[in-house]
């Protein structure tokens, strides 16, 4: 499972990088970038929270291909 951002949905509300800086940062274009693609342990819980709190539903776990 890989933590991913769907940039077609992202509206740069920045809640992910703001509330979960351990997992996301603001990239050069102003859009967020995932820092930890496969969060484990506590980071896994944080990732679940970030997915829940994105106001645009742009973050998810994606099955590895």
């Amino acid at each position: 499972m890989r933590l991913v951002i769907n940039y077609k949905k992202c509206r740069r509300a920045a809640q992910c990088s703001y509330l979960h800086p351990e997992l996301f940062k603001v990239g050069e274009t102003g859009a967020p970038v995932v820092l930890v693609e496969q969060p484990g342990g506590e980071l896994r819980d944080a990732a679940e929270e970030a997915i829940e709190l994105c106001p645009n539903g742009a973050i998810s776990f994606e099955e590895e291909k």
Partner: protein
Amino acid sequence: MDTIIGADELSTRQVISDPYSAYRQLRAQSPFNYVDFPAGKIPGIETPLRAWALMKYGDVYGALRDHETFSSAGNPLVGKAFPPLVLILDDPPRHTRFRRLVNKAFTLRRIEALTPWISGVANELLDEAGRGETDIVRHYTIPLPIKVIARLMGIPGEDYETFKRWSDAFLSLVTMDNTERMRNIQEALEYFGKMAVARRAHGAEDLITALVEAEIEGEKLEEWEILGFCLLLLIAGNETTTNLIGNILNVLAARPELWQMLRENRGLVETVIEETLRFESPVQRLSRTATRDVEVSGVKIPKGDLVTVFFGSANRDPNEFPNPDEFRLDRDLRNHVAFGMGIHYCLGAPLARAEAKITLNALLDRFSAIKLGGAGGTRQALSSVVFGFDLLPLIFQR
């Protein structure tokens, strides 16, 4: 022809009810310094409050994303014209802790779960609205958002006229007598204080209970934080959505072919909502304070000065949105700043979008056409912060 508008007229009733011709004339000169708030309206504000107007998309976007330089705290009107408010008039770290707490009440999933209930309220209001020409503001766009936010907060929604009065008073900074304003705000705070006491005694499944029970790093919230947040929710949760839905219906009443398109393809409903957010933004402007000397589009803004970000103007900047004064469904609308951008991004955005979508679908289910009533709409002219209708007579056809 646009009437010529000077920078110091930006907070007049004329510009409040029709801000777009002002933006067209003034955007290219921005940032410029202007009188944001006149002297003598509020005790303690004895000289005019000046601010820097940011009207270009790039400047607005830059300020919203740089919350360290453009602080939301330190507004000179706090304590004079309004009580201290969490979130909207605050910075990290308190803003961060609070946001983490309250975001959980407004997630897409929570709002999705509320949809059947909101839909029920919407249809009930439409049933009661009657036939023929209807003032949709009075019968629908005011009560719906207040009933919804009241339910989330856990307060009775029947008394929505009182809530509307408090909220209008709060926003009518320039236009209402300040003693009258403060009396209304005080009444609201006392009401929420009583609600908080009741929830401490008997909790319920609502936001006020969540607030009185919440602990951030082992500490309970302070009373002013709880009451300030309630006040903020009541205002932000109703005026903005009232104006959004009114603006959407006005756009559609003027475009009968678009109504037909929507009836045939409901997939376009969300696009119409987003384009209306851009085209007639319900929140037109908010204030920031510069925390350091900063240069914006070549203009030096000194540390400590007030800065106004004009969302409404940024959303009509031709450099970001070609032919900005046209309502179009083929734009990339992810960039509009109607809900802001960055850490202060509207907490209620998912709720506002849901209420607008539910409304449009309910009306499209019922009516084959809508058109503007004889007298036409009247724009509100009380608050420079918001843009919407006081009165919007519509005729619905089955």
